[in-house]
């Protein structure tokens, strides 16, 4: 009888702690969510941090710009991303970088539904990158791929994703861990406070180091990689997945419509794709896809914004602009009547 009593007490303590700790002790410093802040590269899988950040943004009055590494600014630093360049052209901080490196529309859909704070009656800009439709592999309609980014954010039951075929246990694990805030909090602690996600693997890599070093993480500065030199850019034939068949486009559209349903004004910023790295045929298909997307977006009450980059030197690869490229896009947007109307200028 006594035996059970103490076990019940232990489980109650555990359950109460599990429920309360993520809220009482979030261990995130919201004072850094200012200026041109973006989720650090090393915290790309810290969805708890993203949740706290989105909560902070939702309580402010800037325009959140959500999206993948193009919005996040993979080839540049915090101060030269697209939202940062837009802020530079405005008298005050008006845009917040809510991009996440490595995320794709299917995962973004999960991120917004599961971890992000709800945005209501706001203006929101969502980056749309055609990279995710540039092959069945990117579109997740190709063969099974075990290296998909942000797998825990993907739908586990429905709709089915051809490239993502986890075991029942993996599905269940993803469903349970993302429904209980304690697990995302622990993941946050591991990523943000510890030297590595796995304590055991860290000891294997540093067998004779003092254990205290594991608990005193040193933030590594993100060093933006070098882009491809323009003269080395080669034309490629791209196997575009058309909008009527594309899974990633369906997820993107679903995210945009969900935001709209919550009373937000939504603009879809279709970020420029490096047409200088495409064959003529691919380029034609690209523009046809763009036209189709524009039409669908307008039909659904979402404002399409389609900036262009005039020269290949402003691209770092097939879809990411350089810092200069972002500057050009920002300047282009500030001249775009529809965009200016959208942001209320």
């Amino acid at each position, binding site marked *: 009888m006594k035996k*059970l009593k103490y076990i019940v007490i232990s489980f109650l303590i555990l359950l109460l702690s599990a429920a309360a700790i993520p809220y009482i002790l979030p261990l995130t410093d919201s004072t850094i969510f200012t200026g041109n802040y973006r989720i650090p590269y090393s915290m790309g899988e810290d969805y708890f941090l993203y949740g706290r950040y989105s909560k902070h943004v939702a309580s402010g009055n800037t325009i959140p710009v959500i999206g993948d590494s193009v919005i996040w600014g993979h080839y540049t630093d915090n101060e030269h991303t697209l939202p940062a360049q837009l802020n530079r052209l405005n008298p005050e901080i008006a845009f917040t970088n809510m991009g996440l490196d490595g995320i794709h529309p299917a995962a973004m859909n999960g991120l917004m539904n599961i971890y992000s704070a709800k945005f209501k009656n706001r203006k929101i800009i969502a980056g749309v990158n055609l990279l995710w439709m540039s092959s069945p592999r990117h579109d997740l309609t190709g063969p099974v791929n075990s290296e998909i980014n942000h797998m825990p954010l993907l739908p586990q039951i429905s709709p089915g994703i051809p490239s993502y075929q986890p075991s029942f246990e993996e599905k269940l694990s993803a469903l349970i861990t993302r429904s209980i805030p304690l697990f995302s909090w622990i993941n946050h602690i591991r990523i943000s406070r510890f030297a590595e996600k796995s304590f*055991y693997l860290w000891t294997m890599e540093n067998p004779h180091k003092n254990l205290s070093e594991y608990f005193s993480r040193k933030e590594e500065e993100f060093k933006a990689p070098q882009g491809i030199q323009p003269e080395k850019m080669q034309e490629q034939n791209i196997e575009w997945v058309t909008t009527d068949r594309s899974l990633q486009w369906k997820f993107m559209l679903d995210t945009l419509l969900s935001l709209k349903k919550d009373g937000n004004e939504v603009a879809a910023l279709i970020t420029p794709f490096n047409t200088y790295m495409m064959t003529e045929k691919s380029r034609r298909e690209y523009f046809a896809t763009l036209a189709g997307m524009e039409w669908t977006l307008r039909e659904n009450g979402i404002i399409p914004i389609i900036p262009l980059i005039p020269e290949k030197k402003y691209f770092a690869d097939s879809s990411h602009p350089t810092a200069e490229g972002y500057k050009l896009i920002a300047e282009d947007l500030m001249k775009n009547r529809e965009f200016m109307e959208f942001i209320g200028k």
Partner: protein
Amino acid sequence: MLFHSWSFLLFFIAVYAVFSIRSTPLWKRNIILAASFIFYGWWNPLYLLLISWVIAFDYTTVLFMERTGRKKLFLSLSITDTILILCLFKYSGFIVNNINSVLSSAGVDYSIPLPGVMLPVGISFLLFLSLGNTIDCYFGRTEREKSIIQYASFVSFFPSLLAGPIERGHHLMPLLKSWPEVTRDDIAEGVYLFTQGMFKKTALADYFSLYADRIFGNPMQFTSGDLIAGALAFTWQIYFDFSGYTDMARGVARMLGINLIENFSLPYMAASTGDFWGRWHISLSSWFRDYLYIPLGGNRQGKIKETRNTFATMLLSGLWHGASWNYVLWGFVHAAIHTIGKQLGKFKPAAETPVFIKRIAVFILIVFTWIFFRSENAGDAFTFIERIFTTDFTMPQMPFYMAGLITGCYLFQWLKEYKRVEFLDRPQFRGAAILLMLVYIIIFVTYSSNEFIYFQF
């Protein structure tokens, strides 16, 4: 469906909910029988054909033993059936490989294609459980189970189905028949055992495996210090892996009101190899003792026959573990150490050696025997041991934390052996231990889907 998985947790919650609806033994037995078939079929629905065959065949042989009185014939049939199933599923590749080696060395330019038969999980456990009961019926040590459903629930009882403990009919069957009332103490003990087992597996065994796998994966890359540390890491890995599984199995069964037999009793505190086998995988050791060693004559027919019986038992025990010569060698080494140790024990200095020194000496020997068990093949095992003695001793790359855990585990076993930590069995300490173990797992252990080592047997 591993015990330490979300699937099992959900499965068990669902089974437990239905199990608890009614308290009649019949209801409980039927629910657990259905759950056991789902549990086994979850791995591969085809396994259900195998388990159904084993149940039906052994049930029928025992039935005919009683009805016809031709006990020997039907026992032989049951033994043959068990051996054939093992040969087909477990040893066919091994047999074909060896025949091919003989053909090749005889200059025959032909090799038999490998059969490529899948190895059903836990096959050796369920076959030995069922065969043990048939032998018990033969010797009249247990009564024939009249109901095939009851017999099926005994063979397929899911907590112990995949890796034991290998229960005896006279212990488990009456429990499953009358199904004891589940008390609060049962639940408390079951939860404690399950948590302890999960901790042993995920926090200890899987951690030690990171280092042991690295060393055993390529022993030529390492020198003495790392090789010794690697052998030590595997020594504790296999103990926590298997005893962790057993704790979880016993915990699950206990929550259902069934008290399964103990399978481990501080094996690394053994003062002789005989003592070791009385503490390690007790249900298998006693199976071999009761159904092979004693029927062969045990130690009652002179020293030569005793030695023969010891070697036969240990070699078969080795082969039971896996279809590979290094397991046979492992059994051989154990038999040799046991036989030599028994002779040495007759000399005065050995008999007067303090028991703590014997414990340490036996532990060191056991560590060495695990090298044969873990190595990919016998050649690797000898290379491993040779390099321990012929290469320079350098500081091992084993993490300090792991070394600390291993030292702590060893010291804890000493304290347990000498009953210095019995206070930890008090309810409040157990409650605190559960809390600490779960918090440790949640914070420090990343998701583990490693299977248990003994599942392959």
